[in-house]
């Protein structure tokens, strides 16, 4: 049974802690994702958090709030955050709100 329309998994890499998100990020799905991601940030205190957004097919301003919140938290613990391969819907939201100027965005060759 699929309980949520948003899935995410964690991978520790040499670049930092990668959270790969897929599906839909809205207010409902962001609530549980925020709790789980914050738990792992506090437990592992990574120096760099990478949100892989390549598989996100829907995101509204709740998703933006999620990114901004993690950006602030990483800053608070002395780390940093970047977005990897944001999908077109994510990029559209970042551009519209000007957040693309604030957060580091990396595009890898896999797209």
């Amino acid at each position, binding site marked *: 049974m699929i309980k949520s*329309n948003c899935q995410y998994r964690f991978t520790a890499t040499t670049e930092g802690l990668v959270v790969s998100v897929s599906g*839909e990020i*809205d*207010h*409902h*799905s*962001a*609530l549980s994702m*925020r709790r789980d991601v914050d738990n792992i940030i506090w437990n592992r205190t990574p120096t760099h958090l990478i949100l892989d957004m390549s598989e996100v097919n*829907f*995101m*509204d*301003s*709740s998703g*933006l*709030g*999620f990114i*901004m*919140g993690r950006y602030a938290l990483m800053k608070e613990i002395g780390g940093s955050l970047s977005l990897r391969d944001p999908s077109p*819907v994510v990029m*559209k*939201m970042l551009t*519209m*709100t000007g957040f693309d100027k604030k957060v580091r965005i990396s595009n890898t060759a896999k797209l």
Partner: protein
Amino acid sequence: MKDKKHGGRPRLAPICNEMKLDFPSHSKNESFARAAAGAFIASLDPTASELSDIKCALSEAVTNCTVHAYPDHIGIIRLQIKLRTDGTVIMSVKDSGVGIPDIEKAREPLFTTDAAGERSGMGFTVMESFCDSIKVTSKTGKGTTVTMTRKLAGKSAL
């Protein structure tokens, strides 16, 4: 097209299809509302980008009901969508919640009354960006209705 009967205002294309949906303000119904709207609007053959914009604008309006209109209990959200023969989509999201005391303030970018909940304060900005027009009516203690209109490019529902 101008019409003398309508005081010189452009005559609106007739409504060719409409739907109403009442559902409780559980946050899990945000995706349900988007899916229902997407299925209904599919008859207009929107582009992927248009569909994405409309779903996003609707999601913002429904989330506002979940978070702000009914902050401490579950209430009913009424979604109504009308399609005009010229491919115009009119979506209205109505609640019977707490209402918005200052609509102009609420529509300002980055304004939020729920900073602790990590609201970005961009909900109305997103609705305005993804729709051609947005109308908000609200009465404190009575509820809010948000009506969004978006004309699909080169589409006709005939």
